[in-house]
């Protein structure tokens, strides 16, 4: 199983160290001692400042501007509940405020600090040592006397929770003096995109035999080694659709990273992977949560939830890319999840119409691949019917295609080309849905035609699905993108199209050759046999895999402009 990202002890130390950098603690440092730093968080007033004699006063107290932290949604004590629910002291996701431990001394003999807790008080707790001193029920407290100010810490419940602590100096006579406001900000949940380095990939192993995926599994394993893990198929009811069950992301704060997995509400109707996230990932420094409830639609599966690489749209930079997902009113992603993603703003979501697809996921016809030669550093690979027709016309019309005979009722490329109704249908899909999707992506991602690679595609009207679309030629864009540490190179695990006779090697498959000719030099294709286990069950390689990725940017320095109201 995937281990935690790093040693929790080191991570805790890193958190403290980073807080020192993120928060204005200079005045707390006796070696610095110049007292000149003004963090802008306080009201200087006229009664402080370093005296000529060298004494210190309220004006010398520097307070942090803000406290940045991650929501306490992991399970450090491994009791099966996220730690926020435990309300236990000493958790490493409780972020020190960074108050000067000598603040009361600096403020003067007999001083205290009155603290008002404001904002989303139901989503934040304030700790002093082992005690909660402020929460939704208690929104003010006082720091005085023997209180150890270094133990004042913040705990966040959810992404993007915000609040503030307003500290007011109360002097020995009980008069109010200066006040300082410290902002409290929980990290957004950043969902991963394909330009982020892949750390670890996972798939469900259903063994060999006719239902098996042994070649699929070995294809991943031979390339990725220990960076690839499997889930026993028998333990999850042979539910191979691990892309759909979970969505990996990260929470970060200065010096701190928490891997996170959104657990889909996809919990019934053969969706036996439901306990996977809790059983395999939720733990110390690995969070998990489900947004939404009730019976799932297919749109609640996370092959229907993807993220573009970083883009600039109409002058607005999205350093973490933009989320996109498909909807087909009234069926779409669970409201709670939609609202959470929209409220975060940093990956401002947009939607595509997927009502034409039987399964109804955006990964059925779109993927985004790193490309250093592309103007934006990536290109959108999209299934294109016209390209599909041109490709089939380039094939030997009479070559027997055994996989297509048994899987799709076509024996040759010529058979497909001769089916006028098939092309009428596909041309409608292209004109009514795929091209409009491309137009939406151009507008929402600031792209133009040069940012797209059109891949031969062909769809059939599914008998099982009442006439809506399933991939006929395997959806080769539905691939797993295993990006290298440089964020540019990548191994691509792509469904084998089997557009060849049974005696022809995959490297000689004309579709494979066509596809590889489209690839930039930074990408390496690995063709996996997903036909029986995935393709014939309405999915492909991406649907059957999932990937943990490394965060590559800091939201607190690069995405603040998106978080402002």
């Amino acid at each position, binding site marked *: 199983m995937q281990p935690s990202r790093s040693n929790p002890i080191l991570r805790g130390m890193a958190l403290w160290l980073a807080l020192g950098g993120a928060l204005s603690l200079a005045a707390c440092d006796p070696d610095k001692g110049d007292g000149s730093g003004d963090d802008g968080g306080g009201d200087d007033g006229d009664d402080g400042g370093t005296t000529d004699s060298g004494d210190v006063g309220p004006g010398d107290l520097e307070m942090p501007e803000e406290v940045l932290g991650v929501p306490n949604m992991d399970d450090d004590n491994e009791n099966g509940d996220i730690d926020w629910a435990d309300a236990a002291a000493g958790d490493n996701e409780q972020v020190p405020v960074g108050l000067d431990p000598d603040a009361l001394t600096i403020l003067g003999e007999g001083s205290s600090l009155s603290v008002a807790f404001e904002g989303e008080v139901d989503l934040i707790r304030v700790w002093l040592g082992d005690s909660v001193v402020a929460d939704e029920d208690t929104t003010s407290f006082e720091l005085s006397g023997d209180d150890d100010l270094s133990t004042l810490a913040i705990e966040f419940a959810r992404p993007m929770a915000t609040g503030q602590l307003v500290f007011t100096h109360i002097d020995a006579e009980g008069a109010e003096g200066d006040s300082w406001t410290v902002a409290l900000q929980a990290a957004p949940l950043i969902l991963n995109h394909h330009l982020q380095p892949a750390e670890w990939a996972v798939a469900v192993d259903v063994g060999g035999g*006719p*239902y098996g995926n042994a070649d699929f599994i070995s294809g991943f394993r031979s390339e990725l080694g220990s960076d690839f893990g499997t889930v026993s198929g028998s333990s999850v*009811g*042979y*539910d*191979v*659709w691990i892309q*759909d069950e979970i969505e990996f992301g990260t929470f970060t704060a200065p010096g701190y990273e928490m891997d996170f997995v959104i657990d889909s*509400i*996809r919990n*019934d*109707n*053969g*969706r*036996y992977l439901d306990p996977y996230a809790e059983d395999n990932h939720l733990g110390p420094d690995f969070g998990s949560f489900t947004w939404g409830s*009730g*019976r*799932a*639609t*297919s*749109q*609640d*599966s996370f*092959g229907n939830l993807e993220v573009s690489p970083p883009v600039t749209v109409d002058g607005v930079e999205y350093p973490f890319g933009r989320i996109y997902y498909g909807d*087909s009113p*009234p*069926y779409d992603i*669970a409201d709670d999840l939609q609202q959470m993603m929209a409220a975060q703003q940093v990956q401002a979501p947009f939607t595509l119409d997927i*009502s034409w*697809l*039987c*399964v*109804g*996921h955006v990964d059925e016809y779109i993927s985004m691949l790193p490309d250093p030669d592309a103007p934006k550093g990536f290109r959108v690979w999209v299934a294109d019917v016209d390209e599909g027709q041109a490709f089939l016309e380039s094939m030997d019309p009479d070559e027997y295609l055994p996989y297509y005979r*048994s*899987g799709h*009722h076509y024996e040759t490329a010529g058979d497909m080309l*001769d*089916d*006028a*109704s*098939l092309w*009428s*249908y596909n041309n*409608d899909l292209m004109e*009514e849905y795929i091209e409009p999707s491309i137009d939406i992506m151009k507008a929402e991602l600031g792209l133009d035609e040069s940012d797209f690679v059109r891949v031969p595609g062909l769809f059939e*009207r599914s*008998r*099982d*699905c*009442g*006439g*809506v679309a399933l991939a006929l030629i395997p959806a080769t864009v539905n691939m797993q993108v295993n990006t290298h540490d440089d964020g540019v190179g990548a191994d691509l695990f792509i469904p084998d199209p089997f557009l060849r006779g049974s005696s022809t090697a995959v490297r000689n498959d004309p579709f494979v050759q066509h596809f590889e000719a489209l690839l930039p030099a930074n990408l390496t294709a690995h063709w996996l046999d997903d036909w*029986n*286990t995935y393709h*014939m*069950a*309405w*999915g492909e390689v991406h*649907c059957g895999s999932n990937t943990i990725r490394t965060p590559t940017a800091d939201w607190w320095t690069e995405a603040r402009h998106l978080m402002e109201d």
Partner: protein
Amino acid sequence: MRIHTLFLGAVVSLGLMSSPALAGVELSSISQPWAQQALDSAAQLEATQPALAASIRTGDSRPSRNGQPLFIDPTWRTPEAAGAILVRLAEGDDNADHRIALLGALSHTGGDWADGVLGLYSHETDASVRRMMIDIMADAPIEAARVGVKVGFDDRSPAVRAAAMRVVGTHREGNTIGELALSGLSDDSPVVREEAARSIGYAGYAKGFEAMRSLLQDADASVRFRALRSLEKLDMTRLQQLPELSSLAVDPNIKVAREAQKVQAK
């Protein structure tokens, strides 16, 4: 209420939720040739390929990507498997979702299954299964498909009638049964009218042009849109001369209006 899949959503809206399983049909009591052929085929398979026969008798489904059960064992995709699958289907021990999955598997065998499915059709109590029985006629020989379209169009369920219309537009020889879609153009259900219009276009059944014209004034915008699209396929020049086009260009439905404007501009 949230439901499992997009398609199942449509199933719900059409009132097709699964009813109790088919009670079962005693094939040996049916005098039609397909029944005895299915029994003989299953017995033959038992004797010659017992592992495959056992797999078909007892094999369990796997969840498709949207949760629908499927029988995806590739060893079933052989003509010899058709009889045994028909026998299992007729026994009625599987629930409706699994009967649908069996029909899907049956259609991929390449065997002789069409008469058997049509023979079982009248015994099937679940509309969602009957819908699938008709949909797979798109992969049947054209004469069986013709029968399937006719019986399907007589079904009380609009989803089944829509499936019947769909066969015309999906079957590779659909043009030869295009006339069967004409009656669907005046069906009470807009879903059926839309599917009939689509199929006439996909089948390229040019004789349907005049009949489909009336749908340009249908009360349902989806029907108007699909009729417009299909008329484009049949005869764009003639469509551009229709007086209805100017009113469609200002249709209250933006999708219809845009399509009409596009036709005018071509």
